[in-house]
């Protein structure tokens, strides 16, 4: 297969304008005749569904939650980037583009990233018009703050609840369309397969999670906006229901899965504390604006702290190792996430970690509180401090927070071209579900930007270019043989899972998978470790299909059955992640192969061999996937070793 990324000709900064000037359109009368299925109601899904509805298409929008407003975009805390340059600190579209490509360790497609930077400003305008209550200065204008990987303040925020406010904005726009009758909303409904007719995506098989009934839905096009697959690790900052199943269904139908090994490990999460733990809670990157990260310099202090004989505030200033400020003086505590996470791991591996397990470092607000006062810190981060205190039972105004890296976001995902279309005609992917904009590492406050860019400002154009050729395709009824067969296959899969009647709960197997992923496909990877992971994952797959126990039946609500069907797909993703990590013999961004590092322990890329997106093509059950490469060419960005020193 030869991949065509369909990047428009011409200078980088003009590509998107040229595309828009030349794309095909669908007239209003024809829009009414066209159906679009949107799977997911997070930032990308809700913004796309609302925009399509406003344009006059018929939209069917699906969510596994009881309401679109629950999608996990809601949990994003810190902010959203845009190149507005309101603070007059030298920002521009070009600089946001450049920072994003560099932050992604030169593994993203230039043209997509430039478009993202171009539309970033429109997003802020749109959200303000919707009534998103962004933070403001006393003069009434919008406030900004800094995030990792940038030397400008370009992050807009709404307290520590930016994702919530942006999602509510998109959700309200969506509900306006539901009221107008252009969007039909299907809540508590999960997509269990994609229906293909004559090589094109023409619909989905859905399962009503309340009744257990299967449904057939036709669409002239299908958009997957189903988020990332971080929950492969069981413990992550993702919501419990976040899953990669729609992506795996697309992959098994022929869409390519690109860069699965690029997973982001976020440096500032509340550390793991027990085997009953169900998820990890993120403490926003925005805290690194004012918090300083350190561990003790002396081993004896470490031991005394772990034994409870010393408290962190007893450690004198000169006995503290502010290791990020020491190693990266130019960016200090605001280095990108991958760099900060590895630095924390390095200190803990060297024996300087704190907390009961030794797997934690301090995030300290002492100097910020001395400089600005406790009230100022409370105004900026009050809800985050409260969240921390409720979980850990410690007051972060008085004692430093303890943090450790955790799986947070997946840069990899379904391969899409410039139009966000997968290799299956009529199947599109948006937001975290696609692979397109963040390369090997995403910068903070860029996920919200990408989700809304795709949904509000990219898909509404590119999907028309596809649908313009489809205006004479009549609606299908769902009685066609392709729909009937797809439903039968899906039903059989669920029946097969229920018939296993083994001895182990879904969660116990998922936790086992998670540990393998964390140990061998986590922050530091090696050839041997990855080979071990592939073997262990195969054994877990066997165990799952022979020994999982799912009480109840497929009729009515059955939460264990839902979890089992998602775990079956996480196992496939885990295998793909390990294979991709094994193939990529270099370190870049969130992917760190121990064999490839500089003398100072920094990631060492192999640009001559691996300047490509690794796209995996499904070859059938029990067969190894085939690797297809999309070469990345850099016309504008000067590829260099990332330097945050």
């Amino acid at each position, binding site marked *: 297969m030869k991949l065509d990324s369909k990047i428009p000709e011409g200078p980088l900064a003009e590509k998107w304008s040229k595309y828009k000037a030349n794309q095909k359109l669908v007239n209003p009368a024809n829009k009414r005749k066209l159906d679009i299925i949107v799977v997911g109601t997070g930032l990308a899904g809700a913004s796309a569904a609302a925009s399509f509805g406003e344009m006059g298409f018929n939209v069917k929008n699906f969510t596994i939650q009881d309401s679109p407003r*629950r999608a*996990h975009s809601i949990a994003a805390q810190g902010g959203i980037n845009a190149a507005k340059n309101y603070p007059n600190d030298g920002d521009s579209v070009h600089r946001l583009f450049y920072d994003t490509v560099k932050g992604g360790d030169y593994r993203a497609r230039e043209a997509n990233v430039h478009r993202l930077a171009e539309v970033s400003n429109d997003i802020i305008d749109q959200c303000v018009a919707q009534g998103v209550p962004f933070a403001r200065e006393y003069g009434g204008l919008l406030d900004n703050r800094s995030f990792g990987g940038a030397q400008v303040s370009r992050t807009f925020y709404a307290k520590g609840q930016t994702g919530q406010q942006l999602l509510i904005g998109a*959700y309200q726009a969506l509900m306006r369309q539901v009221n107008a009758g252009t969007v039909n909303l299907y809540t508590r409904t999960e997509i269990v397969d994609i229906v293909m007719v004559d090589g094109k995506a023409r619909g989905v098989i859905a399962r009503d999670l309340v009744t257990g009934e299967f449904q057939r839905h036709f669409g002239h096009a299908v958009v997957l906006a189903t988020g990332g697959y971080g929950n492969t690790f069981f413990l992550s900052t993702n919501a419990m229901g976040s899953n990669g199943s729609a992506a795996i269904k697309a992959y098994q139908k022929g869409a390519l899965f690109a860069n699965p090994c690029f997973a982001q490990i976020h440096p500032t999460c509340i550390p793991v504390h*027990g085997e009953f733990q169900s998820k990890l809670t993120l403490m926003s990157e925005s805290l690194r604006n004012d918090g300083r990260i350190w561990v003790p310099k002396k081993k004896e202090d470490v031991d005394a702290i772990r034994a409870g004989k010393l408290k962190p505030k007893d450690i004198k200033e000169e006995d503290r190792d502010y290791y990020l400020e020491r190693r990266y003086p130019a960016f200090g505590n605001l280095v990108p996430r991958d760099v900060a996470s590895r630095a924390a791991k390095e200190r803990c591996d060297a024996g300087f970690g704190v907390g009961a397990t030794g797997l934690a470092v301090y995030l300290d607000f002492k100097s910020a509180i001395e400089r600005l006062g406790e009230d100022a810190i409370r105004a900026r981060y009050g809800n985050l401090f409260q969240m921390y205190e409720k979980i850990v*039972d410690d007051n972060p105004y008085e004692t430093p927070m303890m943090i450790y890296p955790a799986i947070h976001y997946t840069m990899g995902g379904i391969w899409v071209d410039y139009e966000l279309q997968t290799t299956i005609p009529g199947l599109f992917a948006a937001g975290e579900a696609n692979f397109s904009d963040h390369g090997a590492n995403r910068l903070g406050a860029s996920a919200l930007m990408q989700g809304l860019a795709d949904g509000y*400002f990219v898909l509404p154009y590119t999907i028309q270019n596809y649908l313009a050729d489809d205006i004479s395709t009549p609606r299908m009824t769902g009685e066609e043989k392709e729909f009937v067969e797809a439903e039968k296959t899906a039903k059989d899969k669920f029946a097969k899972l229920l018939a296993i009647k083994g001895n182990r709960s879904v*969660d116990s197997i998922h936790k086992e998978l998670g540990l393998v992923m964390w140990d061998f496909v986590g922050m530091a990877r090696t050839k041997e470790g990855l080979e071990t992971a592939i073997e262990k994952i195969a054994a877990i797959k066997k165990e799952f299909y022979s020994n999982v126990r799912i*009480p109840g039946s497929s009729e009515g609500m059955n939460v264990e059955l839902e979890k089992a069907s998602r775990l079956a797909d996480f196992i496939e993703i885990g295998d793909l992640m390990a294979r991709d990590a094994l193939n990529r013999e270099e370190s870049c961004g969130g992917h760190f192969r121990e064999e490839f590092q500089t003398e100072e322990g920094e990631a060492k890329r192999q640009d001559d061999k691996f300047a490509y997106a690794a796209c995996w093509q499904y070859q059938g059950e029990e067969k190894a996937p085939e690797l297809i490469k999309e070469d990345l060419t850099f016309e504008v960005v000067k590829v260099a070793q990332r330097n945050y020193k």
Partner: protein
Amino acid sequence: MENNINLTLKVWRQNGPKDKGRFETYKLEKVSTDSSFLEMMDILNEQLVNEGSEPVAFDHDCREGICGMCSLYINGRPHGPDDDVTTCQLHMRKFKDGETITIEPWRSAGFPVIKDLIVNRSAFDQIIAAGGYTSVSTGGVPDANAIPIPKDDADEAMDAASCIGCGACVATCKNGSAMLFVSAKVSHLALLPQGKVEAARRAKNMVAKMDELGFGNCTNTGACEVECPKSVSISNIARLNREFLKAKFQD
């Protein structure tokens, strides 16, 4: 400090909307006080699955207090015996060794039970669909800094907008009123110039939908404000009433 406690749980089990429902009693041993309430429920469910029984169905997702999915009436309080938290943020250190904990779904005419502890809150979506937005479509909007907004107004709008739509206000209200939820949305948008334009119409349409869906009236008991995990203020209800009256006068 972490320690382990033994618990007796009285959990509401109801197999579907038409089932009558009943309490079942379960024993749990050695639950870490560092675990969250929902992690305790996970432990219970793991135990039930291992016994071959059906686990307890309950709503949850983000487990960090923002998605609004988790609910539960715990020992007679929505979101349980801690202030300013959702059930997922409630930790077992708030309970004593040997304690009996009663766990029920939200009980309200507006929120019918789907299964066990899961209720249907789609009425909230219908109320938002009736007018809880600004009528702007994608594109063609002014620059974000074109209209300055006083910081105090923006902050107050943010406080109202922090509602997570969990429904604790309805569940705790003796009248089953959704006034705190509706007023939070009406206030959030009415405080901003972008939402001011439609404020009166919005209030009227949302209140009409709320009444139509069978939620009760507000009699100012203030219980909703006490139980709101996001501390949404009851003063929003006064603002809703003002906007509602304006709409009435305009008619």
